[in-house]
């Protein structure tokens, strides 16, 4: 199984993603520089966190014009696995692979903190090893994580069960008090209709090592591995 970690100028959680695939899972992994066009031989691609091009404009707005993006869209449309976290999620919404947009946190401050998430579906390639209603605690680390989608589009997303993770309390309650950044309906992560593209703001890759804050996030990667090894 071969993983790719996409690197734009300014990407900075590339190392974290690489570490999960290569060290924790022991898989063949390579970095993909944003000017590359050859994604052959990869089974799954992760778009890690960071500040692509400094994010001085809207986050991810410039990265989506990188040469690799055309190929990535083709890769996604072929049904292979694409997983964007944080800035990677922002790039996926900017490029139209996922709906919505990420606004500034309602506190207008960057927030880095462990935060509980409720898993909304367990029938996806990213979450099939999770238990129903599982609460996992993984860190958020963003300034623009406030997910927004308007009226009908939001209804469509909810109707098709496109929300995979919601911010919640340690007990799993989804309400305003358990919403760290103002995201509509506490949305922390969404999946495309075909079920092969996931974008989320929190960082499961930073909770995969028992020595460093626990392994709550590992189940996502294990789900992907299990699904891919069956395929």
């Amino acid at each position: 199984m071969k993983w790719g970690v996409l690197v734009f100028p300014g990407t900075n959680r590339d190392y974290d993603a690489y570490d999960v695939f290569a060290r924790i899972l022991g898989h063949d992994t390579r970095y993909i520089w944003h000017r590359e066009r050859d994604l052959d031989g990869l089974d799954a691609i992760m778009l890690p966190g960071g500040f692509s091009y400094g994010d001085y404009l809207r986050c991810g707005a410039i990265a989506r014009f990188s040469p690799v993006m055309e190929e990535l869209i083709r890769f996604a449309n072929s049904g292979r696995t694409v997983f964007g976290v944080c800035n990677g999620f922002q790039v996926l919404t900017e490029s139209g692979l996922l709906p919505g947009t990420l606004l500034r946190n309602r506190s207008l401050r960057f927030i880095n903190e462990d935060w509980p998430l409720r898993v909304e579906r367990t029938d996806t390639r990213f979450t099939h090893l999770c238990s129903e209603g599982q609460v996992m605690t993984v860190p958020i680390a963003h300034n623009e994580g406030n997910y927004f989608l308007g009226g009908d589009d939001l209804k469509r997303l909810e109707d098709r069960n496109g929300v995979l993770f919601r911010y919640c309390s340690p007990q799993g309650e989804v309400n305003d008090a358990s919403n760290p950044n103002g995201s509509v309906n506490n949305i922390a992560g969404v999946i495309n209709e075909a079920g092969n593209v996931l974008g989320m703001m929190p960082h499961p890759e930073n909770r995969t090592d028992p020595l460093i804050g626990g392994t709550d996030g590992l189940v996502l990667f294990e789900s992907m591995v299990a699904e891919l090894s069956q395929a």
Partner: protein
Amino acid sequence: MTRQAIDPNQKPVAYPGDPEVTLDIAATLGVTDEEYTRIQDILGRMPTWTELGIFSVMWSEHASYKNSILELKKLPRSGGRLLVGAGEENAGLVDIGDNLAVAFKVESHNHPSAVEPYQGAATGVGGILRDVFTMGARPIALLDSLRFGPPEDERVRFLVDGVVRGIADYGNCMGIPTVGGEIYFEESYRGNPLVNAMAVGIMEPGKMMSAAAKGVGNPVIYIGSRTGRDGIHGATFASVELSEESQSRKSNVQVGDPFMEKLLLEATLALADTGAVVGIQDMGAAGLTCSSSEMAAKTGMGIVLDLNKVPKREQGMTPYETLLSESQERMLLVAEKGREQEIFDVAEHWELQAVEIGYVTDDGRMKVMQDGLLVADIPANDLALGGGAPVYERDVEEPEYLKSVKTMPEFEEPTDLKEAALSLLARPNIASKKHVFRQYDSMVRGNTKVLPGRGDAAVVRIPGTNKALGMATDCNGRFTYLNPRQGAAMAVAEAARNVACTGAEPLGVTNCLNFGNPYKPQMYWTFREAVAGMGEACRALNTPVTGGNVSFYNESPTGAVFPTPVIGIVGLAEEIEKTVGMGATREGDAVFLIGADATSWAGSEWQVMQHGQPYGELPPFNLDLEVRLQQLIITAIRAGYVQAAHDLAEGGLVTAAAEMCIADPLNPQGMQLEFEEISSLDLFGEGPSRVLIIVEPAHVDDLEELARKNDVPAEWIGTTGGKGLGFRTLFSLSFEEMSKAYYHGLSEALGIE
């Protein structure tokens, strides 16, 4: 690049439009009469305006250390695992085994932050990161030591907000975790905040790049951002007191671009791998001038620069402006002739500009050309620290204030113990700094084991190994105010104790010495005393000084800051599994109070609450006991039976115990302390060399035996468990009461919640 031949007999000329050079105009650049004469002696003629500018920044306090170097040389600057000592390169380098070394340094950005807090703090982070990665080390952690005036002051709130955002935006964008530091609020910093940033990096020692120019004819290459007019005379600006007029000097403050710095970081580390780099220096204070002349002076070589080649973002810049610009995110390197293309290829990959702007010569002179004119020709060595830069011995006089602060005015000791405990926990200097550190990304790179607020020091795994580094900054300015020598020794000891409390063994210290105007003898006395105290503690603890920074002139119209020698420290833990934080984790463990038994009200949080400023004589400080105590803690933690350890600092025993109960607010753990009776001084007073340690019940004998062997007092004082912190029948605090005070105190004081 076509290299223009320069006739050795050619004399430098004024650049068209430059002001006429006079003694008066020299004074406006901070050059003294004596220095002006010396410049003419060195050159054998009048300097050009460009040359005067070069001398003024290179001989400024900030770049030359002219008023501090004689004292700094008294510090222990070698020994232990030190590979590169203080002042030899951009940062010190310490061996940590496995063919790895750690580079670390702390530096101030006080004056820029006082005027433009966001950019001032941001570029402070950028500057210290460059110091570390210029050597070829990958930065793995940042820490920030901050001091402000009282939090209810509107201007202070503005500064706190800007400084924290500046640090956050820069470090977060770079993807380097900000894992620790300190924040204090004190009247003396009202007009002059302190913003000290520390960076820690890891490298293979064999790949170290030196800040030295070698090899006649080797090209000098500029890489990174374009040069603009920002930050001109930043180094000189840092070398005078702040005044009303300072607020109008925002053009002295640089503007940061962390995205560019991220590219520069990756490119620099890639350059280190090529082996084509002969020498490299970042353009920080005094920009192109400092980087070029220092690299030349270091090897006795000369350097020729053609300023027309320098990438600029503004039209019509004069040589003076180009040389003195402190535009950020720029590097100057000397490449091996014939291998330029390897440099350009790396730059191209990272989408950076790289241009050859000069070459190395053997005449020891810094020669600068623009528009075909020779505008400066100076012996490089005469510009540099350790070369011809001036070195002064300053007058000292014991300060008047020390007599009056020794006697503590009468005050009321705490009577309602519970109320006193909760009011202390909510004090901004004691309360959790979560409001600040949650704005920093402390987890990126996935190696931070002990997070901010969870231990006495941060613990960061060394990538690719099973080892970890403990790191902290520390200084109690109240103690150094009351007794500069002992206070500074206690600052070193506390920083080392913090690292020891995680199980890491201190390797070395870096320091940022924040003081007032060195030309005031009473101020200079405190500086000299503090350096002496630091030296004593560093020798005793075997932690050599790897480098750092002196920041003088921390004075505003309302007076000087407390003498504040901030200590940054890094320690090594051989097994990351065995490092600990400060939070109690389970029921039924034994709680021990170990170390010294002397406490006092002098400079304590309670005393300052009563009087508004520190008074009194510090309690005795026994360095020998401190060394034994730290050895004991490290040994016990490495033996694997210690669950948590926590130093007793501001607020004394009750604060420390409460912090251990609620360090993890989602999983608090109680503690029942079995005191039949205890004085309020023992509960809330402060003193050095005291630690609370939580030990597995089966190993109580082991700890007691170890304490006897190390000749360190150790007293069993209670057990973990129960609903909150209890002192038998005296008083108790529930989790909710403690959390409300501790986790909301700071944001309430800042008017945020």
